[in-house]
């Protein structure tokens, strides 16, 4: 038996098979699970953002793995739906805050998600949790857990609080001028909105704050089971006078927090969200915000400030407190008397660099020294450690060979004693003859201009004329002036209109016609009163001609009975009066008795013409 293969059927089967393969491939391609971290490392106590994107039409909620000492906290989800050529694809993005309070290398194992009945896995992720000390606080800054927090629920702390963490030290006192590096942290509830309205300020006048970082760090941190937004500054605090003083810092802020004490809205406690857990969340979300201007003040810590001892104070001591050493010196080998040359030095260490002056040349006899410039390179966020480079000019006065060095003295607070350090001696040769005592040429100063302290400028010595503080716009005079201006504009408009109207030729022609008509009417009236029939008709016809001339825009004299009857119906008062006037003129019948009737006809004629003239 021979089986016949139909070509059409074969093609149809092939197409169907191909479509089925494509559908399977497309389905497989559409389902996708992807996880990524926004950073590779994070400080202990801080969090990184884990984003998990699940693409597919029917995806189950991902199951997050449990890792020891590692926190994975859901941060919400978003869904995206695309319809392309009638095909729908859905992707859901889940976000998690991940991190740990314990430093170490953490591995997040593949996260499994079931999409369209199949299980998909992400790649494994790695997160390095660094010790908080790795954030490089100044040397000696505490790097362990934060000091115990004040009770966050305490009335005054609900808007946040301030902590100051000083340098770890065994000493219970500081010296005047010594700068102690501190880490200052403002803690705000994580759902609060905070706006700082001042910089960090020391309370009281015994301490000053130095080198507070311009750009504070912002982190989210857990503390006592609560999550906070933490703003961190680094700076140095120093005492200005000896004695025992409470030291604390403060910062002003406007903080808005949710008022969880506000009455809860009545809500139906049924349905899928009837769980007390959701009630609490929804209540918190619906709680009104309350805002307050607050001053966050750190706890007072009494600090003993000791004066710098007078005993053993070196002659060249200029207030440097800390621990310093010469890094390098730059002294030329060849000199010439009377000619200035630059001497350079770099001192590094930790302490109050702000009060540090340039080292001295030793021996200083027979030299003229000019002030120079210096620049500081901080080694930490609080500018407590670092190095300071000095450059100044010196002019030798005596020739010959010398061995010179640079000397610098400071007070070491840990030793409680003054220390004098000297750079390695350098042999130099000074050419030229010894100089007399005259002033040498000024040293070239390539340094920046000396910054003058900010001061008030100007004081008026002559009293100026008193003025009105309230600007004109807020006084009644302003409205009056604008009213006058408006009136003047209106007056100008009226005057312009009147002037144009006065000079209008049509208006003038009409006025002339009106005047001539009126004069003719007056004459007709007078003639009628005098019984002069002929005179009456002449004047009356002239009046009608004047009026018609104005209406028809043609000379009054050119208007005759023929013209009138051609343009006006024959029974109209105008035509009738013209006929009467012509009859009288040609007939010469002085019928005085009819004057009243003609007068009446004239009035009717003029009234009809007046009516025609109105629309104009």
């Amino acid at each position, binding site marked *: 038996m021979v089986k016949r293969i139909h070509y059409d059927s074969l093609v149809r089967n092939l197409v169907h098979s191909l479509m089925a393969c494509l559908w399977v491939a497309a389905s497989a391609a559409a389902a996708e699970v992807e996880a990524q971290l926004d950073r590779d490392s994070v400080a202990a106590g801080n969090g990184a953002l884990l984003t998990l994107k699940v693409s597919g039409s029917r995806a189950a909620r991902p199951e997050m793995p449990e890792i020891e000492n590692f926190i994975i906290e859901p941060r919400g989800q978003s869904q995206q739906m695309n319809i392309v050529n009638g095909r729908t694809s859905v992707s859901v993005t889940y976000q998690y805050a991940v991190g740990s309070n314990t430093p170490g290398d953490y591995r997040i194992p593949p996260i499994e998600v079931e999409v369209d009945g199949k299980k998909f896995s992400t790649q494994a992720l790695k997160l390095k949790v660094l010790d908080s000390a790795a954030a490089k606080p100044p040397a000696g800054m505490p790097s362990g857990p934060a000091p115990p927090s004040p009770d966050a629920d305490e009335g005054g702390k609900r808007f946040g609080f301030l902590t100051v963490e000083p340098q770890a030290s065994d000493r219970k006192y500081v010296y005047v001028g010594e700068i102690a590096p501190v880490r200052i942290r403002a803690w705000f509830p994580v759902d609060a909105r905070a706006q700082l309205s001042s910089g960090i300020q020391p309370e009281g006048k015994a301490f000053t704050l130095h080198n507070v970082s311009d750009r504070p760090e912002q982190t989210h941190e857990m503390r006592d089971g609560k999550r906070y937004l933490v703003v961190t500054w680094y700076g140095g605090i120093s005492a200005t006078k000896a004695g025992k003083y409470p030291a604390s810092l403060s910062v002003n802020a406007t903080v808005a927090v949710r008022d969880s004490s506000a009455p809860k809205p009545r809500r139906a406690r049924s349905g899928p969200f009837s769980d007390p857990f959701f009630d609490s969340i929804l209540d918190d979300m619906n709680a009104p915000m309350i805002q307050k201007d607050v001053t966050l003040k750190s706890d007072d810590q009494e600090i003993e400030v000791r004066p710098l001892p007078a005993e053993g104070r070196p002659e060249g001591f200029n207030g440097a407190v800390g621990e310093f050493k010469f890094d390098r010196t730059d002294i030329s080998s060849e000199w010439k008397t009377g000619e200035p040359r630059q001497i350079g030095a770099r001192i590094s260490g930790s302490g109050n660099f702000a009060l540090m002056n340039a080292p001295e040349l030793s021996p200083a006899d027979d030299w003229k020294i000019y002030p120079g410039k210096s620049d500081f390179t901080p080694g930490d966020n609080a500018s407590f450690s670092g190095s300071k480079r000095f450059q100044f000019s010196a002019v030798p006065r005596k020739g010959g060979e010398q061995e010179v060095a640079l000397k610098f003295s400071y007070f070491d607070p840990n030793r409680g004693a003054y220390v004098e350090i000297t750079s390695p001696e350098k042999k130099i040769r000074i050419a030229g003859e010894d100089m007399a005592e005259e002033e040498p040429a000024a040293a070239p100063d390539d340094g920046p201009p000396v910054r003058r302290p900010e001061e008030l400028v100007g004081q008026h010595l002559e009293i*100026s*004329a008193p003025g009105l503080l309230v600007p004109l716009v807020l006084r009644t005079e302003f409205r009056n002036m604008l009213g006058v201006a408006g009136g003047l504009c209106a*007056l100008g408009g009226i005057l312009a209109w009147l002037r144009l109207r006065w000079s209008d030729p049509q208006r003038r022609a009409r006025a002339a016609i009106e005047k001539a008509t009126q004069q003719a009417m007056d004459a007709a009236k007078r003639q009628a009163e005098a019984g002069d029939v002929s005179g009456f008709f002449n004047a009356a016809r002239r009046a009608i001609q004047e009026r018609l001339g104005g209406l028809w825009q043609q000379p009054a004299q050119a208007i005759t009975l023929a013209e009138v009857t051609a343009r006006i119906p024959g029974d109209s008062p105008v035509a009738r009066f013209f006929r009467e006037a012509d009859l009288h003129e040609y007939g010469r019948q002085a019928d005085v008795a009819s004057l009243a009737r003609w007068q009446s006809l004239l009035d009717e004629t003029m009234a009809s013409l007046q009516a025609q003239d109105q629309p104009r």
Partner: protein
Amino acid sequence: MKRFLTMILPCLLFATALAAGSSRFDRANERFAAGDFAQAAELYQEVIDAEGPSAAALFNFGNCEQRLGKYGPAILAYERARLLTPRDPDLRANLALARKSAAVFEEPGRFPRVDAFFEFPSLNEWSWIVAGGALFLGGLAVLRGAVGFSKRWLVAGVRSTAIVAALLVALGAVALYLRRGEKERGVTLSDNATVRLSPFEAAESLGTTGPGRIVRILKTDGAFHYVAVPGTTLQGWMSDKDVAAILPSMP
């Protein structure tokens, strides 16, 4: 004789007052130079009270207050002096210094150059530009209406002048509109300037602003002003010990 006295007496009185004020001003300057800022401030205040506010007296008074560390009254005095001499560089420098010392910074506008242009003349100067321009236009309209100009160059000249005046009036009107909020400006005076829920001293505190902060005074009830603190949502009542309007008779 009577008429003569009637005319001369007010002049004499004015001259005497001026001389007295000038001498008081000089004494204030002497106290300032001697470092007695409190006494100098009192004398400057007397000059202002007696003769009316002058830019020099307000400026010097502000300097005294700043020297005394009273940044609120200092900023208020400078702001008032700025109404009279808006382009005085010394005044701007000292005001900036006072603001810096008080840790008060005004939020810059969205268009700093436009703001700088409209703030170059004072509110008073813009008012005069608008009023003067409008009066000029009115006068021109009357002249044009009454006389009419037949010469072409004259017509073109008048028209150009009118367009310039109209543009100035329009520009001034825009400036006055944009700066309309300035009449509500006030300055917090004391370090503990407190915003309260209600207009009385014992009312609950909503927050404090610190000295020298610019606030908007929205209404007044007795000795309390209802203020809004720009840049925050803080609104409430402040005692007139804690806040003063920059324009004394406002709002």
